[in-house]
C-alpha cells in the first residue's frame, strides 16, 4: 500500500519545493506566520518541560517535533468549526484560540485547562484513546443537520487506530457523510509500542479504504503539505462531500510524557538525528533562506515576543486563584442532587469541626 499512499510533500527536508502545484498562492509572509506559530508552540513546549522539571507544573505531555502537523491542520479551520484534541494537541488548541494561561493551568491539574475562550469550540482533550472521534462525528452531524457549513476536526495518534471507537467513528462518518476531518498524527509510537506492533499495515491512510472515504498520507513535518491537505479536506467537508482520513507522518522528539523514559524503548540517537533532518521548523527556515526571506533579526524579535507572551501567561497561571471546592460539586449535574448537596454539607462541617 506504500505505493498507493505515498507521503505527500510540498517542501522537502532540504527546504526545497517539490510540489509547487499544491501551494496555491500562499505568500512568503504567510509562510513566515506559519513559522511563527510553530516557534510559539515549540517555545511553549520547551518551557513546559522545563517547568515540570522545576516542579512548577505536574506531569506534562510534550509534542516537540509535531508542530507542523498540529499547526498546519489547525490553521485550516475557521471560527465556529469544532476541534477535538487529545492530551498531546495543545499546539493545535493554542493555535485555534485556546488561552495559554488555561493551557498552563491544565498542567497544574486545574479544570480551567479544559475550557477554551467563549466561542472557541474546543472539546476537553480526549483521555480514553480514540473515544473523541465519535464526538467529532456527532458534532459534525449536528452541523449538517442544521444545514450549516461548519465542520469538525479530530486529532488522534497511530496507537488510537487500534481501538474500536476509531472504527465506529469512521463508519458513522462514512454512513452519515458527516463533515469531519479525521486527522491522524502518526508519530511512530504509542508510548513504547512502535507502529509495527500496533498494526501490520505500513500506512494508516489505507484504513480509510474500509469505509470508502477519502484518505491520504502526507509528510506531517511539512507544514505546507499539512495545511493544504487539511484545507482541501475541510473544503470537501463543507461542501457536503463527507469525511477524510489524513495520515500525517511525524515524530515526537521527547518522551511520551515527562514521566516516561524513551531510551527504554527506542534509540534516542535517531530522534536527535531527526532534529537535523525532518524537523518542521528547520525545514521552513531552510526554505525561507532559499527565498532569502530569513532574517536573524526577525527571529530574535519574534523569540522575544513569544517569550514575553509565555512569561505573562505563566505569571497569570501562577497567580491564579486557588481551586475552589465548588468546582468539585457544581458541575456534576445542572442542579446538584441531594446526595451531593448532603455530601458538601458534611464535608464543610467536618472541615470546620476538627482541627488536627
Amino acid at each position, binding site marked *: 500500500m506504500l505505493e498507493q499512499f505515498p507521503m505527500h510533500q510540498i517542501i522537502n527536508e532540504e527546504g526545497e519545493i517539490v510540489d509547487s502545484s499544491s501551494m496555491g498562492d500562499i505568500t512568503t509572509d504567510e509562510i513566515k506566520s506559519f513559522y511563527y506559530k510553530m516557534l510559539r508552540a515549540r517555545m511553549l513546549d520547551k518551557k513546559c518541560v522545563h517547568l515540570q522539571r522545576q516542579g512548577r507544573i505536574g506531569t506534562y505531555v510534550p509534542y516537540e517535533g509535531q508542530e507542523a502537523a498540529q499547526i498546519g491542520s489547525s490553521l485550516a479551520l475557521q471560527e465556529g468549526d469544532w476541534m477535538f484534541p487529545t492530551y498531546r494537541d495543545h499546539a493545535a488548541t493554542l493555535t485555534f484560540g485556546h488561552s495559554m494561561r488555561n493551557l498552563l493551568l491544565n498542567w497544574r491539574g486545574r479544570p480551567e485547562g479544559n475550557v477554551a475562550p467563549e466561542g472557541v469550540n474546543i472539546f476537553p482533550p480526549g483521555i480514553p484513546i480514540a473515544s473523541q472521534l465519535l*464526538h467529532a462525528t*456527532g458534532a459534525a452531524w449536528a452541523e449538517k443537520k442544521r444545514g450549516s457549513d461548519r465542520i469538525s476536526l479530530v486529532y488522534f495518534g497511530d496507537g488510537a487506530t487500534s481501538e474500536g*471507537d476509531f472504527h465506529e467513528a469512521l463508519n458513522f462518518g462514512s454512513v452519515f457523510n458527516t463533515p469531519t476531518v479525521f486527522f491522524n498524527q502518526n508519530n511512530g509510537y504509542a508510548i513504547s509500542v512502535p507502529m509495527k506492533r500496533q498494526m501490520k499495515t505500513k500506512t494508516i491512510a489505507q484504513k480509510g479504504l474500509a469505509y470508502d472515504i477519502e484518505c491520504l498520507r502526507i509528510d506531517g513535518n511539512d507544514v505546507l503539505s499539512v495545511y493544504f491537505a487539511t484545507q482541501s479536506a475541510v473544503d470537501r467537508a463543507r461542501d457536503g462531500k463527507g469525511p477524510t482520513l489524513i495520515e500525517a507522518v511525524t515524530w515526537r522528539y521527547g518522551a511520551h510524557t515527562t514521566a516516561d523514559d524513551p531510551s527504554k524503548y527506542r534509540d534516542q540517537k535517531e530522534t536527535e538525528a531527526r532534529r537535523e533532518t525532518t524537523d518542521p521548523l528547520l525545514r521552513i527556515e531552510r526554505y525561507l533562506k532559499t527565498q532569502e526571506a530569513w532574517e536573524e533579526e526577525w527571529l530574535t524579535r519574534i523569540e522575544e515576543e513569544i517569550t514575553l507572551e509565555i512569561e505573562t501567561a505563566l505569571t497569570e497561571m501562577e497567580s491564579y486563584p486557588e481551586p475552589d471546592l465548588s468546582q468539585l460539586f457544581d458541575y456534576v449535574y445542572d442542579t446538584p442532587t441531594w446526595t451531593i448537596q448532603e455530601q458538601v454539607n458534611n464535608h464543610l462541617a467536618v472541615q470546620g469541626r476538627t482541627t488536627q
Partner: protein
Amino acid sequence: MTTTAINTKKMTMIQGVRDAMHEMLKEHDDVMILGEDVGVNGGVFRATEGLYEEFGEDRVIDTPISESGIIGNSIGLAVNGFRPIAEMQFLGFIYPAFNQLMTHATRLRQRSMGRFTVPLVVRAPYGAGVRAPEIHSDSVEALFTQMPGIKVVVPSNAYDAKGLLIASIDDPDPVLFLEPMRCYRSSRTEVPDGKYNVEIGKASVLKEGDDISVFTWGAMVIDTMKAVEKLEAKKNVSCEVIDLRTLYPLDKETIAASVQKTGRAAIIHEAPATGGVSNDVISLINDTSFLYLRAPIQRVAGFDTPVPVYSLEQEYLPSTEKIQTAILHAVDF
C-alpha cells in the same frame, strides 16, 4: 407532578413510552431518536412505531450496530444543540457503550466546567421473565446508579413511563431510562394526552400500610403487589408498597418517612443481591432511620449469578413466596 392535559387514554406501558417520544418530537425540533431498528422497523418492541414515517429519517435514525458509536455520536449531537434519545436494543447490549457513558456523557459538564452539557436520554428495555435469549435479560441498574453524572429512572406503568420519559427528555443531564420488558404489556393505565411530567427523584406510594415498608421498582412491582395482596389476605399484616421509580437520586424523604412509620423494611429487586440498589436503600435507611428499625432490613433479590437461560429464569426471579417469607420474617422478628 404537573398535569396540563385533560383527556386521557388507557394504554400499555410501551404505548406510554411511544406517546412521550411522539409528543416531544412533535413539540421540539431538537429532539431526535437514534438506535438499531428504531426507524423503518419501529423498534423491536414497537416503541418507535410510526415515528419514522411521521418525522422522517433525519429525526428517527436507524444506526449501524455500534453502541459505542450511538452514544459517542449522541454526545456530539447533544453538545451541539440536539436532544438525542438513544435506544439500546436491550440493556444487556449497553456494555460496548460503557466507556462513552462513563468517561464522557456523564462527565462532560464537570470536565468543561459547565461549558458542554449532554441532555441525552438512553432508553433500554431490560429485565428477565420474557423468555429472551442470554444477555438480553440483565438487570444492571446498579452499574449506573453508581455512575456520577447520570440519573436512573424505571417506570412500571404507562402513566409513569410517559411522564418520566418527558421529564427525562427535558432534563439537562443524561438520564438512563429503563423499561422493564415484563411491564410493557402487562397492564393498561389512564394516560393524559399531551405533555406532563412525573418528577425524577420521586417515589410513588402504591399502597399505604403500617407494619412494613416494601420498596421495589420495575417489573418486581407486579410480583410485590401480588405477594402483598396474598399475604394480607391470610395474615394480619399491613404493608406499605413503594415503587421507587427513580433509582438515582433515591427519594430520601419518602423512603425515610415510610420506614420511620413502619419500623421495618423489605427491598425487592431482580438484580443480584450483591451490589444491588437495595444496598443503597439499606444505607439510606441506616443513615436516616437507625433508631426506628425493629428488624433487620429484608432483601429479596436475584442471585449472585448471571441471569440464566430462560428455562431457569423463573427460578432466578424473586417469587411471590420469597417476598411473603421476607415480609413475615421482618414482621415476626
